[in-house]
């Protein structure tokens, strides 16, 4: 086969695939219309099958030609109203579409595809229809306005065997294909179930030359489209990227000359604008409507519903919303799974639905829309919803959450547990009515393409799955990080937060669990990896004195400084002198920049040297030589032309063997130990009364802190007041109620700790204030409370905080006690 023939064949395959995709929803619509079949739809299906037959005959693909011929015969019966598109007939037709597709997929061996069964079924339909001609079969289809008559009923279709070569309707050699409407319009309309407004085109059975047909098309309705190889688009996109780079360099280079050369500024602006538009335009060529995807599900839903004896309607909205081709491709499987779950598990049997007062037919709605630079796709159903208690119980049984944590979960968190890894395995979860099967895989896939997924449910009323997707995979916002003069990009979606650990805090925040470093961050323990170690990069630091780059010899992350760090050889005594004054431990060079990354549901920290800017990067796939390296997701070219690698958090976690489970275990054990030791985790405010006595109150018992001047305190009898928000606020001196020292004499500035009222009412009405000489700190602590040395109103205990014995006071109790005392001794 020569080059040209190969191209014609390729073209034929692509076109036929498109045709087959388009006729599936049409067939299903025929079923819905029953006897009132629209000639428009039937003609469209007819044309598609006929084109396939014509092309196959032209290319000498006998099996394909013969099968399409039989298929076409059934369609003729339908068109001539000799046959009604019952579900059984449509089943056979859909099966036949599958056969055609199988033949097209391996076109050279299409005669190997087994089609006897389908051929028999199709022929059976034909003979059945001919035996009992439907009424009205001979009435001319008046709605047919195309000027050309269909052949009379029963007229055999021009058999390809008669020696007349059938010209394929869409001639493969013609590169420009004139489509009746834009593909996306077609998808939208067919999804919405509206008839497609279609310009007249020759009926398939009439061997009219395509040129004549094209002439008859009204030009205003026709948009010309052209098939372009994706490779070429990718190449164009690369070149556009390169052009942007060149433009940036040009603008920078000519920046100071723009005023010197007359007219240069305008030229540069023009180049600038055109370049940007060019790049945007090329990006757009890769965008496709999600309708392409939606239209597949019509058949899927019908198929599953029929096999389960359910009735399900699929509604789609926003089919015109566009996403990058690659996103659409990667979305197909997870979305299929979600929809399959809907029909399988969520929608009840018709009888059950009627019992509950729901319509017999379940409804699944697919909705796509733009929001904040992303595309949201929501799949919702009106099925039975998910039972939260059962989900929670199962999650606890499977060890996904422990009972303690479970109590803290919100309703939405609980539903989303079904997507946790290990929640559902092959085992069916029919006991949990809803849709949990394999959702962890769905979640992984969605996250892989930079999206997010969330479930919500109302038990008995339905579930909705919300997917948030990036418009394109090709451009993703990323953070550029540096390790030893090398740069890497980290996709923003996988960054949970950035943390900086000061050198002085390193030993406090980083500890070892079974020789693996972990970071303590807000009470959680995160496994920690040093990117340099992972990649085998020699670690360096910049000497703060000499600005020299030196190897970093700290062996472990938790080491603040290696014992063996020798003074730099050849350094002047002066340098050594200074080194002693500013120990590197205290210097910023020893701080750690930690990226907290997300891999699935796990979080972990990655230590890097430097953080640079966020950049929108164009992702380029890894070459086959680099695919085996786990920790990279792709490559990209930075604005300055330099090639850098994109990090893959999942791969890093895998590669560095992060033992999430072990660390979780350890964290749980630590929590339990803490509980046993009756350690309390508290947010507290620490203050002084006299300088050497330290007190603490829990933050959650305090309404607010105020600064006051001592001279504003008014004395009335044995009570002290201060004017506060228009009223007199009673003051409480600690030494009036507790055996503690009074306020120091010399302080002019004092502080008021205003407790919340005990009734817990939310009005910020103040009943009194505790006077303090100094607020020392507000902090989170884990304390082991001991019995106090004395008892008194509000005294809770003592604990050592920062080497200071601290008295814990409940300010509310103290305030109430003071109130009672005042009333008792007015």
């Amino acid at each position, binding site marked *: 086969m020569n080059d040209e023939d190969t191209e014609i064949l390729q073209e034929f395959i692509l076109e036929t695939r498109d045709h087959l995709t388009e006729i599936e929803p049409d067939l299903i619509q025929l079923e819905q219309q029953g006897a009132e079949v629209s000639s428009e739809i039937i003609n469209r299906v007819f044309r598609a099958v006929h084109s396939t037959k014509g092309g196959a005959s032209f290319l000498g693909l006998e099996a394909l030609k013969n099968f399409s011929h039989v298929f076409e015969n059934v369609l003729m019966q339908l068109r001539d109203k000799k046959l009604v598109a019952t579900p059984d007939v449509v089943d056979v037709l859909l099966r036949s579409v599958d056969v055609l597709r199988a033949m097209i997929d391996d076109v050279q061996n299409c005669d190997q595809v087994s089609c006897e069964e389908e051929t028999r079924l199709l022929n059976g339909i034909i003979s059945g229809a001919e035996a009992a001609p439907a009424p009205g079969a001979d009435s001319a289809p008046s709605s047919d306005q195309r000027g050309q008559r269909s052949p009379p009923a029963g007229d055999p279709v021009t058999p390809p065997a008669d020696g007349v070569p059938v010209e394929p309707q869409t001639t493969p050699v013609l590169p420009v294909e004139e489509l009746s409407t834009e593909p996306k319009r077609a998808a939208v309309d067919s999804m919405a179930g509206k008839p497609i407004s279609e310009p007249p085109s020759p009926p398939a059975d009439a061997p009219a030359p395509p040129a004549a047909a094209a002439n008859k098309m009204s030009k205003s309705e026709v948009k010309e489209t052209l098939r372009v190889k994706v490779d070429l688009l990718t190449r164009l996109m690369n070149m556009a990227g*390169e052009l942007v780079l060149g433009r940036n360099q040009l603008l920078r280079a000519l920046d100071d000359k723009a005023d010197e050369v007359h007219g240069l500024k305008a030229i540069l602006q023009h180049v600038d604008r055109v370049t940007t538009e060019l790049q945007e335009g090329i990006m757009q060529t890769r965008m496709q409507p999600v309708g392409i995807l939606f239209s597949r599900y019509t058949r899927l839903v019908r198929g599953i519903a029929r096999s389960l004896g359910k009735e399900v309607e699929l509604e789609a909205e926003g089919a015109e919303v566009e996403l990058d081709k690659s996103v659409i491709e990667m979305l197909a499987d997870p979305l299929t799974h979600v929809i399959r779950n809907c029909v399988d598990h969520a929608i009840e049997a018709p009888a059950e639905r009627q019992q509950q007062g729901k319509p017999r037919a379940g409804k699944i709605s697919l909705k796509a829309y733009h929001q904040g630079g992303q595309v949201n796709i929501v799949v919702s159903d009106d099925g039975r919803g998910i039972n939260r208690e059962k989900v929670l119980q199962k999650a606890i049984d499977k060890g996904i959450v422990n009972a303690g944590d479970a109590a803290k979960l919100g309703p939405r968190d609980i539903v989303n547990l079904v997507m946790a890894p290990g929640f559902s395995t092959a085992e069916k979860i029919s006991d949990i009515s809803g849709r949990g099967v394999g959702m962890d895989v769905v979640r992984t896939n969605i996250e892989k393409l930079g999206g997010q997924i969330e479930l919500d449910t109302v038990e008995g009323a339905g579930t909705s799955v919300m997917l948030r997707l990036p418009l394109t995979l090709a451009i993703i916002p990323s953070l550029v990080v540096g390790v030893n003069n090398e740069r890497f990009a980290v996709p923003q979606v996988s960054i949970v937060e950035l943390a900086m650990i000061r050198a002085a805090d390193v030993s406090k925040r980083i500890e070892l669990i079974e020789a693996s470093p972990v970071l303590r961050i807000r009470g959680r323990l995160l496994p920690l990896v040093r990117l340099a170690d992972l990649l085998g990069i020699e670690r360096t630091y910049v000497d703060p004195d000499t600005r020299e780059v030196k190897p970093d010899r700290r062996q472990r992350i938790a080491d603040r400084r290696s014992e063996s760090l020798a003074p730099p050889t050849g350094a002047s005594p002066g340098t050594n002198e200074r080194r002693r004054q500013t120990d590197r431990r205290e210097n910023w060079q020893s701080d750690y920049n930690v990226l907290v990354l997300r891999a699935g549901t796990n979080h972990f920290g990655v230590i890097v040297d430097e953080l640079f800017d966020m950049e929108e990067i164009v992702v380029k796939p890894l070459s086959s*030589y680099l695919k085996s390296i786990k920790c990279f997701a792709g490559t990209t070219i930075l604005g300055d032309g330099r090639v850098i690698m994109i990090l893959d958090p999942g791969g890093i976690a895998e590669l560095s063997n992060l033992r999430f489970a072990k660390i979780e275990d350890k964290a749980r054990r630590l929590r339990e130990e803490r509980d046993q030791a009756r350690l309390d985790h508290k947010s507290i405010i620490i203050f002084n009364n006299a300088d050497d006595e330290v007190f603490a109150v829990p933050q959650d018992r305090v309404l607010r802190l105020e600064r006051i001047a001592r001279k504003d305190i008014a004395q009335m009898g044995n009570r002290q007041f201060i004017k506060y928000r228009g009223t007199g606020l009673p003051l409480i001196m600690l030494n009036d109620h507790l055996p503690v020292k009074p306020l120091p004499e010399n302080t002019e500035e004092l502080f008021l700790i205003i407790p919340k009222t005990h009734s817990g009412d939310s009005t910020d009405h103040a009943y009194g204030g505790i006077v303090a000489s100094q607020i020392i700190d507000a902090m989170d602590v884990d304390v082991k409370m001991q019995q106090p040395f004395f008892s008194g109103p509000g005294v809770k205990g003592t604990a050592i905080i920062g080497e200071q014995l601290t008295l814990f006071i409940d300010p509310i109790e103290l305030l109430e006690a003071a109130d009672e005392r005042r009333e008792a001794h007015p």
Partner: protein
Amino acid sequence: MSQYVTFRLKNQLMGMEILLVREINQLKESTFVHLAPQYVAGLINLRGQIVTIFDLAVRLGMTPCTIGEETHNIILKTNDELSRIRVKEERADLASSDDMVGLRVDSIGDVVEFTDEQVESIPANIHHIDERFLAGVVPFKEELMFLLNAGMLLNSEVQ
């Protein structure tokens, strides 16, 4: 008759069939890829396309190249670009990689022409080069020129 681009690697004269060569350049700024196979010298940006540069010496089983004044990259065509040439030249045997690959060599020489008859099989005494990657040898001006087998050389599964 086939044309070959000649080059030197560790002083050894070698040839690559010109039908496979896309371009030759001297781009030296490459990005090293950690954890990559040893023969991957790095990645370069060729007008917006990323090219994997092979350290040819390492790939052939020798010590790494040192970059000098005369160091060149021979950028090869991809399989996709070759598909037309295969048909046009009736050379179904031509094979390269699906990715864009460049070979780092010490210096570039002339383009020479040989007939198939001139190409001899690989002598048994060649040990310093992995002979899986050679297509044959040709006696040329009192030297032995090694012709490379690009299909094997660029096959990521051949270690």
